[in-house]
């Protein structure tokens, strides 16, 4: 009924009249059916486009487990584990493989955090490398960082 353009010209229910029970039930069923069908068709479209676009997207993505970045000219900066002070205190450790998407986002967050800290200090940091730290002798990276900070010559 709805898809026939000729029928659409005459509305089925007159606006100014009260409704009887059959009209109400019919309207409800038809309404729910049409809304569900329209959205179901959209689901089908999305599922199809999903498979089309996903295959198209996958071929173009390079996978990079480790990342090196040099965004701004400034003092060289420490890597992820060391405390962020004026003096660099690199703490390299073997990089753990991670999915490239997660890794990119994590790197972006780290760079943003370092930049924000640098702004507060008034210094500009340059992120040379970001490597994931594995546990050393069962002690956490934070504990290690704290130890480095405490033992740094001043």
């Amino acid at each position, binding site marked *: 009924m709805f898809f026939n353009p000729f029928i659409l010209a005459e509305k089925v229910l007159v606006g100014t009249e009260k409704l009887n029970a059959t009209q109400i039930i019919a309207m409800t069923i038809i*309404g729910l059916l049409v809304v*569900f069908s*329209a959205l179901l068709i959209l689901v089908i479209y999305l599922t199809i486009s999903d498979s089309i676009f996903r295959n198209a997207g996958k071929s173009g993505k390079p996978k990079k487990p480790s990342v090196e970045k040099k965004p701004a000219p400034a003092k060289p900066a420490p890597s992820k584990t060391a405390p962020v002070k004026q003096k660099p205190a690199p703490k390299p450790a073997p990089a753990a493989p991670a999915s490239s*998407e997660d890794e990119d986002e994590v790197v972006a967050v780290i760079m943003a955090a370092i930049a924000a800290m640098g702004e507060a200090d008034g210094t500009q940091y340059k992120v040379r490398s970001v490597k994931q730290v594995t546990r050393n002798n069962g002690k956490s990276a934070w504990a290690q960082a704290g130890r480095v900070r405490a033992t740094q010559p001043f």
Partner: protein
Amino acid sequence: MSGVLDFFTNTLGGLWSDSGLNALFSAGGYKNLIMILVSFVFMYLAIAKGFEPLLLLPISFGMLLTNLPMAGLYHPELWVLVDGHVNYGEVLKEGGLLDILYLGVKLQLYPPIIFLGIGCMTDFSPLIANPKSFLLGAAAQGGIFFTFVVAGLLGFTAAEAGSIAIIGGADGPTAIYVSTRLLTGGGAITTGNIALAAYTYMALVPIIQPPIMRFMTTKKERTVKMEQLRTVSKTERIVFPIAVTIIVSLLVPSAAPLVGMLMFGNLLKESGVAARLIDTAQNALMNIITIFLGISVGATTKADQIINLKFGGVMLLGVIAFSLGTACGLVFGKIMYRVTKGKVNPLIGSAGVSAVPMAARIAQKVGAEADPTNFLLMHAMGPNVAGVIGSAVAAGVLLSVIG
């Protein structure tokens, strides 16, 4: 000498009898006073309680302006259909300020433009990443049709029932779009009633939804953690609005103005090539149209028309509509939970009630109550934005059936 005195008394007498104060105290004027007080209530809700202030404040002020007697800002009699249409010549000749602004509402111009702005601000990627959310968006529109049943049984006319039902779509512009088309003027309910109910209950969603959500789902269902959504490529996000426009407009042509503008706005945003247009659509254009829409819709709540039981009926049915929508969404959410063997959290079904992003935030909140490490927000945004499309389709259905 007495001539001058006469002149004074006559002029002052004339001024008094023409004044609004006199009209307030004469026959029927008390109704205007009641409506003015009601407008104060809504202004209080908007300003002090923060209920959807961007719309509720213009609407309530429009209510105030229209009920000031003799001010002549709005004339309901101009908008009654004569031989099937409004006498626009008469409107242009006799109309007051709010009559002229109301033209944009009656001509169905403002709601689609607001949808344009909404499309510019909406991110459909949670929906694209999880197409099943569309079904939850559809299910929540059950609130619309079941409210139609209740309104019909209560004796409202077809047009009134349709306008009340669309409140369940939880979408202000859609509700205004439908009710201006269906309500022919001179009836007991006006667009202003519908809009008031719609925006009040949209603001009350945080109060209406959670009890229903807790009642209808078990703790186990609420703690379901959903798989992280995949990222959606830019190409998908550009093709989506185009495809939706074509598909929906072919299936339900009366929904085309709303869905078309929504998707147009979204395409502008996703394409990224029309930064100036997006900026205007999201900001200046939205704000201008919101002001005009709000104040002119508020103006339709003129006292002689709407002080009757039906106004209360609309407000009552409004909360029923929202509750039914939430319930339907939850029921379908539970069905999906069963069907996917526990992969879908039923709570996101309630986000199909398209009060964006409030309903999604509430799904997140109730989910976090059950398990604080559960982040349902992005998953709930899928049904939430699907509900916007769903309520526009439902609006199209109502408009094509009811004449």
